[in-house]
């Protein structure tokens, strides 16, 4: 059967592969090559070695964007996961209207980043104007916490439904057995429920880390990096290096390669670490 299937490569795999090559594979390889070149369009590239990489660190933009991104990711990942897990615990307690609540909490996740950013700009600016008489671009701290709040609003419902699915998969007999053995509510939670939902934790950590770290749309629309470039995250810094400064395209590409390597390292370390903690259900 394999042999017959194999002959059908042009029908089953070729169209996807062509699109994949155009949209991903060729641009990816070109991107790596171009990160070692000086260029303004892809056809006039001149090899310059690692000059782009050293120039990426020649001013403070990139390191400070990296630091801001790391801070933002740590804070928002912790907040989102704790709040989403608590919410999931509440919604698995058989309260009236669970489905309606779940629907409402999840809804913000469907709205796109650009639109979300402007919704929150209105709210945060209104609150700031009424309380301290400033707007979100007047201080980096406002932008930072604004982004965190926005991210929580968007992602809590999403993570919550993954945690709910995990909690509902815990066999009730396990919990009963623990209760018969005299475990308190807290012990049941920490010794039974949480270890059993570790697969969900893996997924949620993965999704929140990668979404926070790669954030672009929300950053662009909520603060656009203001004030100065103090609230500029890595993705936005790379974009601005590419399109904001003539002659810096190669540096933008070098930054993008560094960004890719960091994202790759984080993804694999994190998957490896949490997979080890999972227990067989």
């Amino acid at each position: 059967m394999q042999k017959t299937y194999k002959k059908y490569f042009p029908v089953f795999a070729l169209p996807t592969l062509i699109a994949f090559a155009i949209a991903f594979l060729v641009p990816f390889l070109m991107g790596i090559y171009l990160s070692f070149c000086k260029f303004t369009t892809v056809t006039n590239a001149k090899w310059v070695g690692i000059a782009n990489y050293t120039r990426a660190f020649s001013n403070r933009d990139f390191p400070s964007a990296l630091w801001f991104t790391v801070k933002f990711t740590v804070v928002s990942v912790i907040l989102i996961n704790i709040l989403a897990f608590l919410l999931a615990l509440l919604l698995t307690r058989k309260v009236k209207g669970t489905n309606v609540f779940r629907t409402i909490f999840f809804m913000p996740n469907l709205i796109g980043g650009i639109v979300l950013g402007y919704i929150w700009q209105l709210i945060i600016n209104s609150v700031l104007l009424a309380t301290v008489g400033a707007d979100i671009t007047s201080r980096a701290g406002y932008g930072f916490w604004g982004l965190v709040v926005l991210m929580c609003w968007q992602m809590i419902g999403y993570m919550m439904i993954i945690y709910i699915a995990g909690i509902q998969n815990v066999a009730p007999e396990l919990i009963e057995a623990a209760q018969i053995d005299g475990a308190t509510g807290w012990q049941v939670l920490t010794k039974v429920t949480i270890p059993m939902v570790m697969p969900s934790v893996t997924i949620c950590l993965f999704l929140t880390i990668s979404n926070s770290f790669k954030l672009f749309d929300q950053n662009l629309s909520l603060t656009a990096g203001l004030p100065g470039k103090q609230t500029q995250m890595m993705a936005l810094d790379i974009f601005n290096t590419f399109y904001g400064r003539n002659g810096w395209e190669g540096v933008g590409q070098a930054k993008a390669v560094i960004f890719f390597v960091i994202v790759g390292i984080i993804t694999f370390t994190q998957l490896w670490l949490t997979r080890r903690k999972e227990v067989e259900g």
Partner: protein
Amino acid sequence: MAKKQSGNTILFLFLLLLSAVFLAPILMVLMNSFKGKLYISDAPFQLPSAVSFAGLGNYAQGVEKSGFFSAFGYSLFITVFSVAAIVLLTSMTGWWLTRVKGRFTGGLYYLFVFSMVVPFQMVMFTMSKLANMLYLDNPAGMVVLYVGFGAGLSVFMFCGFVKSIPIDIEEAAMIDGCNPIQTFFRVVFPIMKPTAITVAILNTMWIWNDYLLPYLVIGSDYKTIPVAVQYLRGGYGSVDMGHMMAVLVLAIIPIIIFYIFCQKYIIEGVVAGAVKG
């Protein structure tokens, strides 16, 4: 028992309050979309009054300035055709890759998985230039790009599902005289329907809301909704907040309608997608 009952009531009220907090941002945009721009900055928390009420003026001008209806059309065209193409093509590829075992197919599979880890910034410049050179800088070309960039996750998900389909069914179909194309469309694809729905939902959410790819490739000629919203803002601070609020409301409405009708599939699809992805 009475204690548990009152505990549940408190919990219910708490969740009700929390729902109000979650909905407040959207309601606030809705409320302000009916006010004149001066009143949005001066009294954002007040309901529209006789003085501040702007009727549908914001909507009329917001639609005109942002070209909302054509943006809606482009967004719809690109999303519908891209999602259809992704579901069709990647399900075929996922099935083929899983059934034909070898070094080549194994390598391809890992290449698709690998592409999921790569951030868009890594390829955005080269991809948009390449799209330009290949005359893909139009809504139909966008479909090709979305198939290519969405292939990673979608192929991965279909491969995962095909592994759970017993091969006997396909052998039986072959013996009954089906060629691989008939086997796939008559036997395999119907079984894959749940995964196809998940893939369709995840890609719809991504493509409808995507900003950077359409902005870079077709942003100046064909604006999708996110691009139109961002353009409306124009230079820093020059936007009429009234128009902005109206366009934001219009941008949210299709999503809410879609959500209301496909709610069950969306939540199930997202959970399934997360668990497998």
